């Protein structure tokens, strides 16, 4: 830790932001405590995380896990009690109020409740960050028109927020957050107030923001589905601490903590449904029931057909849950192997040698 901190101090003043070797956002042993009614609440405990340039980085946790506080340390809506947050090579806590305001123009933010100005039109809402920066009117018009077309709301420029649906409001929020051409977008539960279909379309829009504008996105959510849909990296938070972090694929494939396992279960089922339990009970003793967990190219189907051909056994898929993570198939299969005992044993041995995790189920 001591060495790490020393390296940071050396790099940050000289390091050019574009190299971003230290990452776009680096949390260095960040802690935050609140005093509330004589009690001290530790909202963040020694959080160290790096968000690389171009990431869509998801932070997941239950409410009260500290993820919202963590997000707000990036634009100093919350000031850390200890540690530092380095954004694009700059240690925020060392900046003057004026410098901080200009850094904030480089960080867009969207909110669960959208936080649009109700008395202003869509156009004026999106224009607001530019108006604050005294941008010339003509430039504002061009930029806002471009952004409204990007989010698909050109025809709503003159509408007021209370005339829009939730999804449209969030699109306005996104356009507003992009107005000053930021390189970072912070998303505070941006889809949590939306229905699944709208969530999907907003997530796709965020993906476009990431790809087309090359904006690094740090998002917090309590929905694993959101992480699964668009994030490439994820951190799991519990009681103010990051308990697990890594690529989405790694965390999904091999969750280390109970809380991470629970989140993974919410999108990839690995428990056996009751109907299958009944089926298993009926088949007990007659065949071998196995559970295969696979990631990536070792998808179940070709392997299972191989097993059927080579070992003269019947392969029967009883239950399966397959999803895709970052373009990689990922899931569980519960399979029945039937045939004579020797064949089944050899088939099982064969499956064990493949690039999958396999386990016999004793129901």
């Amino acid at each position, binding site marked *: 830790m001591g060495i790490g901190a020393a390296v940071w101090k050396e790099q940050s003043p000289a390091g050019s932001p574009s190299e971003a070797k230290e990452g776009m956002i680096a949390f260095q042993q960040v802690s935050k405590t609140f005093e509330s009614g004589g009690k001290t609440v530790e909202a963040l405990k020694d959080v160290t995380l790096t968000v690389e340039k171009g990431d869509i980085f998801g932070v997941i946790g239950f409410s009260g896990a500290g993820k919202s506080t963590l997000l707000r340390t990036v*634009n100093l*809506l919350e000031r850390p009690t200890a540690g530092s947050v380095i954004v694009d090579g700059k240690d925020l806590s060392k900046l003057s109020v004026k410098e*901080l*305001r*200009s*850094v*904030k*123009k480089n*960080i*867009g*933010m969207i*909110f669960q*409740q*959208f*936080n*649009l*100005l*109700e*008395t*202003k039109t869509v156009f004026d809402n999106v224009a*607001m*960050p530019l*108006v*604050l920066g005294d941008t010339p009117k003509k430039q504002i018009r061009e930029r806002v028109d471009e952004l409204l077309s990007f989010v698909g709301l050109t025809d709503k420029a003159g509408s*007021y927020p*209370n005339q829009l649906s939730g999804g449209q409001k969030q699109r306005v929020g996104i356009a507003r957050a992009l107005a*000053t051409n930021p390189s970072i977008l*912070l998303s505070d539960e941006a889809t949590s107030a939306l229905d699944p279909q709208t969530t999907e379309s907003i997530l796709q829009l965020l993906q476009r923001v990431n790809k087309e504008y090359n904006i690094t996105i740090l998002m917090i959510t309590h929905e694993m589905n959101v992480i699964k849909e668009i994030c490439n990296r994820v951190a799991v938070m519990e009681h103010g601490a990051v308990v697990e972090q890594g690529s989405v694929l790694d965390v999904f494939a091999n969750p280390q903590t109970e809380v991470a396992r629970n989140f993974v279960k919410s999108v990839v089922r690995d428990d056996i449904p009751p109907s299958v339990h009944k089926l298993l009970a009926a088949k007990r003793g007659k065949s071998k029931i196995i559970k295969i967990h696979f990631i990536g190219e070792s998808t179940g189907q070709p392997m299972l057909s191989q097993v059927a051909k080579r070992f003269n056994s019947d392969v029967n898929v009883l239950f399966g849950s397959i999803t895709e993570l970052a373009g990689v198939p990922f899931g569980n299969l519960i399979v029945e192997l039937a045939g004579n005992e020797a064949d089944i044993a050899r088939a099982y041995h064969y499956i064990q040698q493949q690039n999958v995790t396999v386990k016999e189920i004793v129901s």
Partner: protein
Amino acid sequence: MEVSSEQVFQALYETVYMVSVSLVFATVIGLPLGILLVVTRKGHILENSAIFSALNPVINVLRSVPFIILLVAIIPFTRLVVGTSIGTTAAIVPLVIYTGPYIARLVENSLLEINPGIIEAAEAMGATPLQIIFRFLIPETLGSLILSITTATIGLIGATAMAGAVGGGGIGDLAITYGYQRFSTITIVATVIILVVLVQGIQSLGNVFARKIRRN
């Protein structure tokens, strides 16, 4: 002895004069104080417990003095400000002192209605405190602010009735001196009707403007 219509018009003029001039000054004093009461409180954009805890009790004290007492109590101050302690203009000073803190409280309540998320969004955009006040806080609560000023105006009309105590004149004074003290029922009825129309008109006007601004 009945009042002449000339007297009624004179009284109406005096009331309108006292109310409008007092309202302007009271707003000039009350609006910034109300804003200060909001932005200096704990957790707000210009948190400052010294200012907040100094301002808050002063406003409470001024608000708790009955107007008729205040009117008399500050006579030396009134003389200092307008050079006289008698007459319509002299009544304006206590009216301002009475209404200013009232407006401050009303403004405070209006501004507190804002969704805190809007302030957070403004801070995330890097808005300065002044920008937050004038581009977010006031525009977003303008409808409510207008209703607050409407309420204060109606309160002022009520207070001007007591201005007669320092020779301020006005509709209320007419009702007391002619209607009540000289048993002229017709004067009472006429002045009450005038006051009802005045109050109703101001309230309706306030409602129309507020609705227009709130966009619903």
